[in-house]
């Protein structure tokens, strides 16, 4: 799929620097952004072409036939913006999994997020904001055991040897890589935006800020019984 938001000359440059081509999920997001003010059936067709996105939108209840009609009804019920946040989630989830695997050799398994899960991980919260055509914030939340395992893998040391500064700095840099990659995807999809520096806090009770027209979603990942929660809070400009 191609999108008018992506410059046609760029694949040549990406190839010159041995960089990955634009992913399907980013192309789909670009296409959705391009038609966001258009007819619902156009948007529904784009979503229905993506099985994973359709499943998330319909919460797993995808009919064997007529999925586009069901998607269109759901868009009518929810509005377009929650759909865009869903479509943005795919590049974010990919960035989280790719960063953990590349930098730490940790393979994350996506899990359903329930109330029991969330109360278990409040030790460290890292966050970065994005500002521009898409405004919002991404949070990473994990317990000390996971943060220590992560630092040990990234730094190549025993988890117990990692200092408090190591834990914070590794989490900050992992967050920077994840959200930097996500922000680059948003820019490529036509949602030009800038990134803040990461902030890491310990022992704070997580509460996403109340933002007018803000849309919040949370995704869970598990590794060796330890949980990582990733929140995305987005407010669309005009």
């Amino acid at each position, binding site marked *: 799929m191609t999108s008018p938001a992506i410059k046609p000359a*760029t694949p040549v*440059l*990406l190839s010159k620097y041995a960089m990955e081509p634009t992913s399907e999920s980013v192309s789909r997001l670009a296409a959705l952004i391009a038609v966001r003010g258009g007819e619902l059936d156009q948007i529904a067709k784009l979503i229905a072409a993506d099985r994973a996105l359709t499943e998330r939108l319909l919460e797993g209840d995808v009919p064997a036939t007529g999925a586009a009609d069901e998607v269109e009804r759901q868009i009518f019920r929810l509005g377009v913006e929650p759909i865009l946040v869903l479509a943005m989630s795919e590049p974010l989830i990919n960035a989280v999994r790719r960063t953990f695997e590349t930098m730490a050799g940790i393979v994350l398994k996506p899990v359903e997020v329930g109330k029991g899960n969330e109360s278990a991980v409040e030790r460290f919260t890292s966050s970065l904001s994005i500002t521009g055509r898409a405004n919002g914030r991404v949070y990473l939340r994990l317990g000390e055991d996971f943060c220590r395992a992560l630092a040990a893998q990234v730094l190549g040391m025993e988890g117990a040897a990692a200092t408090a500064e190591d834990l914070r700095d590794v989490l900050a*840099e992992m967050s*920077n890589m994840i959200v930097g*990659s996500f922000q680059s995807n948003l820019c490529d999809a036509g949602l030009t935006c800038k*990134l803040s520096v990461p902030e890491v806090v310990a022992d704070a009770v997580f509460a996403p800020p109340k933002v007018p027209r803000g849309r919040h979603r949370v995704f869970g990942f598990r590794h060796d019984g330890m949980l990582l929660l990733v929140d995305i809070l987005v407010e669309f400009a005009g």
Partner: protein
Amino acid sequence: MPPKILTVDDSRIVRMLISRALQGCDCQIVEATNGEEGLATALREKPDLILLDVTMPVMDGFELLARLRQEATLAKVPVIMLTAESSQESVAKADGLGVSGYIAKPFKEEVLRDRINGIIALAAKS
């Protein structure tokens, strides 16, 4: 003399990972934590290769890159961007400023090592 590599990145973790990736390579590593410090260090140390982040306090990587290109003694020093900012616009901007390589974070240490070795070998030939 072993080649001198200047790393400009505000992250202590990334600087540490780069040093680890280059362990065993016959090279000398010097470090700076922002663009302004990077420019001063480059002028003083005359590196053979610069690894450059984009988003940094004081002076960002693109501004430093533009400044390096204006310095007679540093204009032709190969620069590899090593950054999480991997949008097509950023890649195009770096290309316009004549970078020798662009590596998106997250990165594999062996990819970084191979690119550095390749560029140093090429520079030595010319």
